[in-house]
């Protein structure tokens, strides 16, 4: 790498590149015309070639474009669910830190409750409740992912509350709302965004897992989990490409988003970059 750039600049450039790449995959998934993933029985079960990079599935659909589409579906679900989840975490975390002892105790109990059931099972239950579909998946993921971020925010607010300048502005007669928006939120927002982005990979992985199990998205939707669960039927017949490539792409995207979040943390909170 260029010696003249320092580490922070390098991280910034890397993060921007990752962001652009993720956005490109997302946009490609939305913009791909229907015909590109249409089934054509003449091309069924083709191994990877120059024409079909990832090969074709049993209905002759091009797997590369299907994967890209599936990724953008997974990312949409992941992003919407994590945004909802992060807002829940922010509200719950602040409420726990600022509220009375009873509120704090109740919220801790609630977190123990959500963490006390394996998430896969909880998402299955919620999806069952909402009649197995996109809605169940979104609600399920949003309802299970807020716990750790809520704990983080609660700790952060607790720590900030004991600072002298907060005590001072309280003595100066500022209202709790004013302190919240002017003193607490500016500290919390960077944490919140990093937490939000680090939630995406988990949400996307859960989305893929639950779709794989057959809950969530309907089978005609090209979600990654569905492509992979279809690929299982043809695995013993020697069709390896529908299982390998879409999964590998999923891993890469998840890894990319995860690293993006970590880099963003280093930019926003330079002290953590030393670890």
């Amino acid at each position, binding site marked *: 790498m260029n010696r003249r750039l320092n580490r922070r600049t390098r991280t910034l450039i890397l993060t921007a590149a990752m962001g652009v790449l993720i956005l490109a995959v997302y946009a490609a998934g939305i913009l791909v015309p229907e015909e590109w993933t249409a089934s054509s029985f003449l091309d069924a079960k083709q191994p990877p070639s120059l024409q079909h990079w990832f090969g074709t599935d049993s209905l002759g659909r091009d797997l590369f474009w299907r994967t890209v589409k599936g990724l953008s579906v997974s990312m949409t679900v992941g992003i919407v669910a994590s945004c909802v989840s992060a807002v829940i975490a922010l509200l719950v975390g602040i409420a726990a830190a600022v509220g009375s002892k009873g509120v704090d105790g109740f919220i801790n109990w609630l977190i123990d409750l959500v963490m006390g059931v394996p998430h896969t099972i909880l998402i299955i239950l919620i999806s069952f409740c909402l009649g197995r579909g996109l809605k169940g998946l979104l609600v399920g993921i949003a309802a299970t992912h807020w716990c750790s971020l809520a704990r983080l925010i609660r700790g952060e607010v607790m720590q900030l509350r004991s600072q002298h300048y907060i005590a001072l502005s309280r003595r100066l007669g500022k209202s709790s709302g004013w302190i919240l928006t002017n003193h607490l939120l500016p500290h919390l927002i960077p944490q919140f965004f990093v937490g939000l982005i680090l939630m995406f990979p988990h949400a996307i992985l859960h989305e893929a897992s639950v779709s*794989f199990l057959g809950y969530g998205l309907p089978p005609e939707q090209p979600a990654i989990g569905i492509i992979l669960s279809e690929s299982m039927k043809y695995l013993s017949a020697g069709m390896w490409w529908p299982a390998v490539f879409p999964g590998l792409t999923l891993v890469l995207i998840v890894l990319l988003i995860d690293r993006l979040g970590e880099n963003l943390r280093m930019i926003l909170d330079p002290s953590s970059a030393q670890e």
Partner: protein
Amino acid sequence: MFQWFIRLVPRGLRYGLKVISLLLAVSIIAFALVCASPIDPVQQYILGLGTAVSPERRAAIEEYWGVNDPPVERYLNWLGNLLRGDLGESALYRRPVAEIISQRFANSLALMICAWVLSGVIGFALGCVMGVFRDRWPDKLLKKICYLLSSVPTFWLGLVLLLVFAVTLGWFPVGFSSPIGVLEADVTFWQRLHHLALPAITLSIVSFPGIALHTRQKLVDVLSSEYVLFARARGEGTWTILRRHGLRNILLPALTLQFSSFAELFGGSVLAENVFSYPGLGSAVSAAGLNSDVPLLLGITVFSALFVCVGNTIANLLYGIVDPRIREVSQ
């Protein structure tokens, strides 16, 4: 000693109360979710029978299941039966749920114990290596591998291992917990282990990065402390320092973390069991959800909460042993 024990009692009671309230809440929420579902379990049950059912018979089934009673009454009925050990009859397998759970849990437990021990040992060993070689190439390489593996979905890893080791190389069977066509009594231990290997390896590969990174962090903290610097100044070698100062300080926290990861272990086993058609609780729960088998779904949910609870309780007890300050604060 006795005094100390007496002091522990109120804390134990409070913890027990909390555990009971959590389990009750899980059962209420699970029951409410299932009740609110638009999927009609009676309809699914009748579809499962495979024959036409007269309206009178249907009414009899509804009466027997108590579908038309108010939800609260049904919940109390169900809870009462649950406490007596009767979880109802599974609509999918036509057998008592308690029997299915106990049978399948034996399979799942074997799988989870293997994966748990394997991921613990691998994770701890790699964590030690990373801590000792801090910021040198083995550390950097292993850290990258850990980050990579924590982005890998369990079910896809299972698929790839299945493809490579079962379909292509043929080293391991493709699925199930025992060879097909062999009577249950004739299955040997080695055959079981052979069928268990791939799902257990899958499960442990996805769960060891967490423990490895945690162990690395703890070991780095210990190794950069002043008493380790002093030990080094006295002339102790790296291995001696690791044995005398490192392992003692990091072994129990790692074990605690391992016990508190029962929820992820169970969640992962749902996926691994589905990929490998392994007849455990995980494959039963997803089948129950897909086939609207309400009693089985509820039973396994409550059971999984109980399972996680046991892990957390052990972890909490270990915390007390690891860090005496926690004991003192509560006094």
